[in-house]
């Protein structure tokens, strides 16, 4: 689908992701990120046409936490606002659609997650099929490990290749001042075999925000806007046993509909919390050797739940802003074993 209005990501900010943020409430963690992203554009809350956020109350066990987070926006006089109970990448999708309708020219999108108060491996079991799966409490690492084993059995990777991937991502993350885990490190023991500690994302707290703007407004606010050429999201069957876990047809279809295959991309930010999932995505999206994958370190370097997908879009946009990329693919995922996938294609104007 070709959007008939030009919309771009014009600014991106994120927190320094940390294992714990006991000293801060959610809004106290989020607010500096909101201020930073507004500062980058010179906009005030009252200048923003639409605000959309993503978060999940289950992470920190705080009911209606997104209403408290709104305190950090300054939502008075009343703003046009919405919220999704998933990763902020989907909030960005909603905001993009809102701008495409012409009802707004600018949007603030943010998301945050504090995993530290709870046990995220257990919390995520509550998103599973409540009849046949959730009563077994299969944690997020276990489900990813089933996928990794299927991938190894299919000959697509092995434990040594996954270890190498983990080391490369965390080495790259050394240049990312916001990353939680940087530098190659021992793979550690099996958490759930075949996945080792090094194959798993760090657990931590963090927040991210972007600003979208349409047309000339985008050019005013940003030297080199990251134009959203296309964006789509797709979901697969919820029952793991009916899926081919070694492939990601939903990511591929979303990418196709976002226009990712029309021309090669030079950069890809993939939301792959587990090393094995980056292998699945790289294969499914046909990303070749010429593509810089996750120069930020990706989710293996910092995986604040509900923000990590939005951060992929933000990192890809920031690469365009800096001139490091001319055409980037950004991907976000949600659910077990890459169940839902969102893909956006971002481009900078020719230099």
């Amino acid at each position, binding site marked *: 689908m070709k959007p008939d209005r030009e919309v771009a990501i014009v600014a991106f900010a994120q927190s320094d992701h940390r294992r714990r943020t006991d*000293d801060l409430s959610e809004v106290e963690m989020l607010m500096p990120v909101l201020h930073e992203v507004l500062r980058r554009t010179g906009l005030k809350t009252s200048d923003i046409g639409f605000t959309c956020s993503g978060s999940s109350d289950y992470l920190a066990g705080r009911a209606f936490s997104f209403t408290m987070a709104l*305190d950090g926006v300054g939502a008075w006089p009343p703003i046009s606002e919405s919220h999704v109970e998933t990763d902020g990448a989907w909030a960005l999708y909603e905001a993009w659609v809102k701008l495409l309708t012409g009802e707004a020219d600018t949007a603030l999108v943010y998301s945050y997650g504090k995993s530290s108060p*709870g046990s995220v491996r257990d*919390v995520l079991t509550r998103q599973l099929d*409540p009849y*046949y799966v959730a009563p077994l409490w*299969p944690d997020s690492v*276990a489900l990813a490990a089933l996928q990794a084993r299927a991938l190894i*059995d299919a000959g697509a990777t092995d434990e040594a290749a996954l270890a190498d991937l983990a080391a490369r991502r965390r080495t790259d993350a050394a240049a990312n001042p916001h990353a939680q885990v940087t530098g190659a490190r021992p793979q550690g023991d099996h958490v759930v075999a075949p996945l080792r500690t090094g194959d798993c994302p760090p657990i931590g707290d963090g927040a991210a925000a972007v600003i979208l703007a349409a047309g000339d407004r985008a050019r005013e606010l940003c030297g080199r806007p990251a134009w959203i050429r296309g964006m789509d999201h797709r979901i697969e069957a919820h029952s*793991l046993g009916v899926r081919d876990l070694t492939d990601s047809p939903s990511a591929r279809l979303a990418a196709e509909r976002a226009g990712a295959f029309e021309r090669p991309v030079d950069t890809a930010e993939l939301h792959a919390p587990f090393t094995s999932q980056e292998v699945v995505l790289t294969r499914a999206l046909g990303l070749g050797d010429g593509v810089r994958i996750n120069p930020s370190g990706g989710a293996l370097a910092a995986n604040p739940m509900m923000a990590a997908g939005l951060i992929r879009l933000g990192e890809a946009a920031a690469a365009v802003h800096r001139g490091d990329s001319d055409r980037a693919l950004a991907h976000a995922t949600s659910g077990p074993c890459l169940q839902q996938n969102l893909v956006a294609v971002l481009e900078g104007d020719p230099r």
Partner: protein
Amino acid sequence: MTPTPPPEILRAPLVVEFPFTRSLGPVQSAFLTGLRERTVLGVRTEGGRVLVPPVEYDPETAAELRELVEVAATGTVTTWAWNPEPRSGQPLDTPFAWALVRLDGADTALLHALDAPGPDAVRTGMRVRVRWAAERAGAITDIACFEPYGGDAEGGEPAPHSGEFDDPVTGIVAPARLDYTYSPGRAQTRYLQALSERRTVGERCPSCAKVYVPPRGACPTCGIATTDRVEVGPRGTVTTFCIVNIKAKNLDIEVPYVYAHIALDGAGLALHGRIGGIPYDQVRMGLRVEPVWSGDGRYPDHYRPTGEPDADYDTYKELL
């Protein structure tokens, strides 16, 4: 009035526990009732595939599925993962393999635990069978787990099944419990620590100067951090109130009683609390009140009249 150093971080256990009561569709009901009777049912799609566990609608075409078949309690592992440290709620409390198992006669795989002595005893393609739970109630946990099985797959098409059983299961109760350690953050920590000294301390917005009690860390109007601490009260004014006539569960307060919005002197907005020490039908807007601290002195249990003349409406009309 001056910013103070960060307080000691407060922490408290927080348990979120909820028993979800869920009704079952006809296919789910037959499947879970079947497990209770040691019978594994699948459902056949229009395309002829047999889905186990069975679902109400075809995941590919969304067609309504009702053609039940009985599959074997034996099957083949399609993928697995070794779980060295079982977690709370999982099927086994000793190390086990998670496995997707395609039961003989089925075209899709079921997730469950596989009891095996170690990862070296598990491989993709191995044969397994259902180990039934001793007590079965019509739930996925009626399968205790899978266990290794030496036999080959039995051939043949799965036989049609009516899905009818005596006393069918029509719903499940899925208990869920999540444990958290709650930390309230900077502003609320300071507020709670002041309360323990029988002081009520709000925070002022540096932009609009409104004093928030209790503070939540940000001015929701200006979207910036509240930083300056301001002690308010202890006395305040009832700005509005209601009379509660229904006794709350586990609450040892006689009805009727009055629940009120109270603007503490110096606060930029009203907080809420119970009014005591006065008959419920004599509480009024403008009534001047003061806190009566709880036995442990950690928070105001309720507010009582001070005996002062009522406040003028003009003094609190902006705080309604």
